[in-house]
């Protein structure tokens, strides 16, 4: 099992967490109901050490699961040793981007390094699909490197904006996001369900 983009991951996460939330609410409600009953008996007994082992397995297993199913985790950790297919240097100052080109066109499964430098404030760098869902993001701190390696496995045209608050000057008086760059990234060459044709 591998998630080839964030949309798949978020959809999985939505289902998994909703099931968990429904379960924990039901368990406590059931527990509360039975607390008031004299004849309530334990349906099952959870030995303490098994419960603790379950929590440990949950806490550690979650990270092992994501490391093995989300491709950008290992890529991110090892990004300094990976040669990207393309590097895009971006600068930002006074809430204005200095972009290498108006639109970046990326081929399917290309590994791209975005290198973003802030000259003043702490910003963010995030790509979003046309429906508003997030492709990826990172923080952009002044004075330290902010680079993210990303492999695009699905076609799409993505908008870019700052994902970190950097003051009200990011917006017009009417609330329009002045840092949003429409259609900044275009990915082509993938099959309909993702990955290279």
């Amino acid at each position, binding site marked *: 099992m591998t998630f080839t983009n*964030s949309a798949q*991951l978020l959809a999985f996460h939505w289902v998994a*967490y909703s099931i968990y939330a429904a379960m924990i609410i039901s368990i406590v409600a059931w527990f509360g109901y039975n*607390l008031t009953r004299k004849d309530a008996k334990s349906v099952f007994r959870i030995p303490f050490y098994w*419960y603790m082992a379950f929590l440990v397995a949950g806490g550690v297993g979650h990270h092992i699961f*994501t490391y093995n199913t989300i491709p950008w985790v290992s890529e991110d950790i090892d990004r300094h040793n990976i040669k990207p297919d393309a590097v895009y240097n971006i600068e930002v100052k006074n809430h204005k981007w200095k972009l290498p080109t108006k639109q970046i066109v990326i081929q399917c499964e290309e590994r791209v390094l975005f290198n973003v430098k802030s000259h003043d404030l702490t910003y963010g760098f995030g790509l979003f699909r046309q429906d508003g869902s997030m492709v990826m993001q990172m923080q952009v*701190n002044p004075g330290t490197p902010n680079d993210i390696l990303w492999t695009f496995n699905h076609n799409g045209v993505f908008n870019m904006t700052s994902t*970190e*608050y950097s003051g009200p000057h990011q917006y017009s008086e009417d609330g329009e996001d002045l840092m949003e760059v429409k259609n900044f990234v275009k990915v082509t060459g993938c099959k309909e369900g993702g990955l290279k044709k």
Partner: protein
Amino acid sequence: MSFTKNLIEGTNFDHKSLNALQKVTLRSVVMSFLFYGLVALEGMIMRMVEVGRVPGNPVPEQFFHPDHFFSIMTVHPIVGIFGSTYQLVFGAFLFLVPYLTKKPLYSVKLANWTWLLITLGTALAWMAAFVWQYAPLYTLYWPLPADTSQFSAIGGVVFIIGVALIMFGTFGFIYNIYATIFARVGVHKDKTMKELLISGFGIDGLLNLMNKLRGKPPYTKEPALALPVVAIFRGTVDTFLDAVVILGAGILVLVFLLADLSGASWDVSAIDALLYKNFFWWGLDLVADGLVLIYVAGSWYLLATLITGQKLFMENVARAALMLELLVSWMVWSHHLLGDQGQPEMMKLISGEMVTAFELLTQGLALFITLVTLWKARPLKMTMELKYLLGGLIGFGLAVPAAIIQADMGMNRVLHNTQWIIGAHVHIALIVGLYMTLYSAVYVLWPIVTNNTKLYSHKLSNTHYWLHLIGGIGMGAFMGMAGLDGMLRRHLYVDGQFNPDMIFAAICGSMLLIAWFVFLYNIVMSVGIKGLIGIFLPAEDKTASYGIEDEIEPADDPAFAN
């Protein structure tokens, strides 16, 4: 009794019968709930702005302006965390520590200064945003708070002074708590400082466990401090460290703002933004992952034992776990920096992921111990305090795993700074987990602190409970869903891009606001307006303790006990 008479006189509340300790506790509680109303209103305004400029939205146009919107967003957590939560927790603990240790509070005067300073500080910080629209948000990411091209330097100075006053009030609370715990009077007359320290850190619980494993008699059969006091002792260590860090950051910002006002132009890049972020999050995270979790665990243990009237299940394990939580809470801040590429990968992995995952264990353990303690005492009557306690357990049962999920390098890439974090995790942890636990404590302590005042209406209490529970979970859930759809948390959306999620979140948010009105109405009708005013009048009975016969005043100055 007529409505008017109830409104003015209350049920049977007599403020003159309250002693100094009871009054100072109630003062904090009253201020806390007033600030809660303000924070709920602020939250609703922001939620309605996010619903967008749609027909029928009653929010005036000025709130859609970024200056105004982010001013509200800046003070919302200040009012909520410090003005409301801190005051409620501090008020409760300043009563509980003397009550549980059977000793008088070190100083009622200092306790009065605590709520006064926090109230004044919160009001000043709020004014800075309202009048000068100072809006660097609570995160204060460097160099934004010192950016005078976007914000008024005077507004910034007022804001920092406000936050500093809150921290001074916090130091007052800390001093009072430790001075009371370490006072060798009453039941602790023969205890040494070492014994109290060992018990405070939960080391006696660990030694008891180790002795049990080695087949030796317990280190102590009667620990010097009750378990909830141990939790307060431990949580207060983090409260202190957190206050030092926030005050330190405040001084840094203040120095730059004052330099700007004096005409000098200091280079903000002299401060490393990422290093500052580490420093600031280390301290700020001690609120979320330190004192809140520890105070909550302690409150659960106390509530479970008071509700059941029985001993806590696995008390030694609970004591030892509180010590473990101390170490864990100091090492988890990097989960806030998983999206910062300059942060060393090892710190992300160890502090951000692995140590953070430990919180699943410590909080899961507290949940387990509380549930088993309740279960062993069944059948129990479903009282308001029990209902709220179960609500609190649900809140953390939802919010803690949500936190562990997002404290992951893979998930964080798409969840960081989204509404998922602030909704599914933070708001559910605070509104459902923390507040419902605190409401449970309010119902448990109500007869003790108010000298058996009859509550105006149990129906209203129930209404409040369900509105708060459903509203809290619902709002967090819809915010979380919007986050999964890509909605950022510190961003202005004015076109309703994330409807219908935001509409549903606003409906649930309004349930929370109505719940607060219902609760407030119930309390005012119970104590009456006369009683409410009376709480703030000097106490005739200067006693600084509750439930003990011989009164000893540990403060050097006898005038402290007023």
